[in-house]
């Protein structure tokens, strides 16, 4: 028995090409955001993790998540704010898990296997200060920490930071003030 099949080549091709065009346009838009916000994501992650390799991994994951949700995030300000928040969150998660791992390893490590502690002469003053600064930053509340990191990133004004976080300018200024004050108290 012969089957009759109704073929509408014009419509099918039209559907495919429309989908492809849509995707190509979205990819082009995402590429623009990627070039603009990729370094921002890396720096936010770096501000939390202080390790370039880990920060790169986190930034990559955050950017891919942003791509997955790009339909909601086409507006540039919305995209930046979302990316900053998700990157900061992912970086904090990774930092916490790294801390847990370090603690576990320290508990299991035998004293004779531990690396020899550097002498006071070996430690440069700047490195010691950097370590104290890092510890002080880790102890900051999350919202203060995020504002401190964003305000320290080159090329972003406090107005842009406020727009990214979706909070008023005054809130950003007060958070920054308290964050720096806490750091200063810890470093004294």
């Amino acid at each position, binding site marked *: 028995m012969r089957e009759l099949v109704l073929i509408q080549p014009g419509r099918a091709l039209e559907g495919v090409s429309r*989908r492809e065009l*849509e*995707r190509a346009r*979205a*990819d082009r838009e*995402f590429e623009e955001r*990627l*070039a603009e916000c*990729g*370094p921002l994501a*890396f*720096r*936010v992650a*770096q*501000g939390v993790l*202080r390790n*370039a390799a880990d*920060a*790169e991994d986190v*930034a*990559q994951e955050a*950017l*891919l998540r942003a*791509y*997955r*949700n*790009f*339909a909601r995030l086409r507006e540039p300000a919305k995209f930046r704010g979302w990316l900053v928040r998700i990157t900061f969150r992912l970086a904090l998660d990774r930092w916490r898990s790294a801390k847990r791992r370090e603690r576990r390893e320290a508990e299991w490590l035998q004293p004779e296997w531990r690396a020899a502690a550097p002498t006071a002469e070996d430690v440069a003053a700047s490195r010691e*200060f*950097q370590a104290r*600064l*890092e510890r002080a*930053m880790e102890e900051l509340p999350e919202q203060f920490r995020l504002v*401190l*990191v964003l305000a*320290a*990133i*080159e090329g972003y004004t406090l107005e842009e930071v406020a727009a990214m976080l979706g909070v008023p300018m005054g809130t950003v200024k007060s958070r920054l*003030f308290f964050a*720096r*004050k806490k*750091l*200063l108290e810890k*470093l*004294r």
Partner: protein
Amino acid sequence: MSCEVYRESLSDALLRGEATLSAALAEHVRACADCAEFYESQKQLLGAMDLGVRAMVNEKVPASLLPRVRAQREAVEPARLRSPLLPTAGVVALALLILVPLARWRARTASQQTINPDAPIVREQKDAPRMDESIVLSMHPSRERLRAAKRCCKPEVVPQEAILSAEQAAVARFASEHPEEMAETVRAAELESIELSSPFEIVPLKIERVEFAPLEDDTKTKFSPVDNGSAQFSEEH
């Protein structure tokens, strides 16, 4: 003001990024050597702190970051390619899946509602006066019981007798042609209805004597019950 208070104010001025100190603070810094030293040390510390944070954050972005994201992007299906109506359709389908069986179940339970034996039961009584709905509501507070009570109190529809127009015409013709007989028929019908509706008693039938008589023959057969329960037939000519 003590030096402690001045130092607090000096720190705050530095944290706010004020380029110049207020007159009172500047005068105290000039007058107090310790506070001047504190101010200088705080200025250096804050400068070092800001530099440290900036150095920490503004590290060079690895060149591999963007190519890695581009390469991984191929494997990621963006959510935007899905229809935006899909979540809505899912919610509607879920709601239907829940609501339709629920509505059916409610309808079934309403029809098969078993009333608590302790609760008052409303029964239809022909001669009893109709119960007020507010009383029924107070006796049956639940909605299902109210429905049941409404069904119960609802007067039944009396089926009407179907009379053909030909029958009506025949009765009218009969009444016009034989008015006396019509009146008698009506009276008899009324009497019959009165007799039927009046109370009566059913008693066992007692037969004392039965006679069988042929119509053409003059011979008569008589049946007479006797005392021992049997019957006796006799023929008379």
